[in-house]
């Protein structure tokens, strides 16, 4: 755990007149499992998309796997970064089957003019079976529920065989059971495939309690960065969400007790 796979230096991102990130620096080592938490609109998603270069940097530098993500090889670099976006970002009417959606994960790796081989389909099927969606492989993607689509998105990332795994609120709007299952699934994939994982959530209940490190984001800045037991205290949460300490005490999930 010494090799920095992600190195963000003084990243500034703005969407028109709104500044989403105000000079954020972050180093992530190989194999880390990091949870990024913070209120809505704090810049969590932007921080994640800075890593795969989906947003334009106003200032700063981002090195991923030793290379500049905004350089000429950004498409090649993105092939090594799996990204699960928020639920409901896809067109439910698209005529495409679940298995074909998973195969999209391999399209970038295949490159132009090459069709998926038998091995590619095998990898896609393996990914589907890992997320427990084999029985729905032939269904149109739009016929699946939110939780099922989220599993398919994770399978798509698995088929991509990435080194870095980025998840943006993968459990938002899912029921409690689906949420627990997805959290376990992500952790299992992280361990089995030796990935570096960043997991964004605004919901403290969805915090993977097995994560190594928690990053608190507020108003486009990183306001905390430590192990979960050191960071998730009543005081920090009270500051993060602008709530009085006594309210947080009543509402907050009991992270310490869960991890014991």
């Amino acid at each position, binding site marked *: 755990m010494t090799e920095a796979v992600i190195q963000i230096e003084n990243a500034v991102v703005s969407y*028109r007149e709104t500044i989403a990130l105000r000079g954020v620096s972050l180093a992530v080592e190989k194999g880390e499992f990091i949870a990024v938490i913070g209120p809505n609109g704090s810049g969590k998603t932007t921080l994640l998309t800075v890593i*795969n270069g*989906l947003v334009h940097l106003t200032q700063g530098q981002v090195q991923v796997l030793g290379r500049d993500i905004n350089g000429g090889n950004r*498409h*090649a*670099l*993105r*092939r090594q*970064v*799996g*990204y699960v*976006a928020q639920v409901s*970002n*896809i*067109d439910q009417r*698209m*005529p*495409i*089957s679940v298995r*074909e*959606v998973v195969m*999209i*994960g*391999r*399209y*970038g*790796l*295949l490159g*132009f*003019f090459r*069709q*998926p081989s038998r091995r590619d389909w095998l990898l896609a099927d393996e990914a589907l079976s890992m997320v427990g969606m084999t029985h729905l492989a032939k269904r*149109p993607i739009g016929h699946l529920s939110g939780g099922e689509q989220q599993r398919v998105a994770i399978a*798509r990332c698995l088929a*991509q065989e990435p080194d870095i795994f980025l998840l943006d609120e993968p459990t938002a709007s899912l029921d409690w059971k689906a949420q627990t299952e997805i959290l376990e699934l992500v952790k299992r994939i992280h361990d089995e495939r030796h990935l570096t994982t960043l997991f964004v959530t605004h919901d403290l209940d969805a915090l993977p309690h097995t994560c190594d490190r928690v990053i608190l984001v507020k108003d486009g800045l990183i306001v905390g960065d430590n192990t979960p037991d050191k960071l998730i205290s009543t005081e920090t949460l009270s500051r993060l969400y602008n709530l009085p300490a006594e309210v947080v005490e009543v509402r907050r999930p009991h992270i310490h007790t869960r991890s014991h």
Partner: protein
Amino acid sequence: MDLSIFSYLFMQNAILAGLLGGISCGIIGVFVVLMHMPFIGVAMSHAAFAGALMGLWLGFDPVIGASIFCLAASVVVGPLADRGQLSPETSLGVIFSLMLGIAFLFIGIIPNTRSAALDLLWGSILTTSGEDIVLLAIVAFLVVAIVLLFEKEIRATLFNRNVALAVGIPATLVLYCIILLTGATITVTLRSIGGLLIFSLILNPAAAAYQLTYSLKRMYLLSATFGVLSCWIGLIISYYLNIPSGATIVITSSLVFMLAAIFSPKRKTPELTQSSIQEAKQ
């Protein structure tokens, strides 16, 4: 049976134009339907109208003016939408209104030349020349070749641009090329098919194909088939009943859509059986 329809050169050309135009329009129709931008047909034909008028005003071939305007408009749609953070449909609307403005301007400046430009907007498949057929064949070949070669990049981009970008596909470029290809197809087919006909020939076959399948590959095939069938059936009806071919082709393509919608398997609801209720209760 009366086979005189095949004995006229203009009918032979029209049948060929129907085949080639039907295939290209059917395939780009799939993009148009899946990207939710049906307005592109109307916007492009008005760009052609404005361009043709400008050609007349400056004294060169209206077709060249029309082509320049159409291509320029289709190059601008994508970047304009991204830069202004608009949907492509809104971006098309902005371009459409500009083209309409330019057209009116030229109509005001150069009186009595309206009909030549209007011909282009209305067009007629029965006046397709040998030269038009060559152009139509080139475009049909290009459209089919591009879809075959870049099938997976196009599929990923149509599915979701951000997902396509995230897996390492240059999706923005792919999207702009799809729009440009659509614009180019419309430009070339416009002269023989006409601005109004092209709108229905892009939309109806693809919308009909969408009713019948959940597979993108089959949607391309069905849509191209429906495009060709609409042209051919429309031409036959127009020939034997001696009525305008543009109208019969438009109406045929609409009927194809209605039939597809009626027989769509997507509309069938699964039967609620006693056993499935029992299963759910357990």
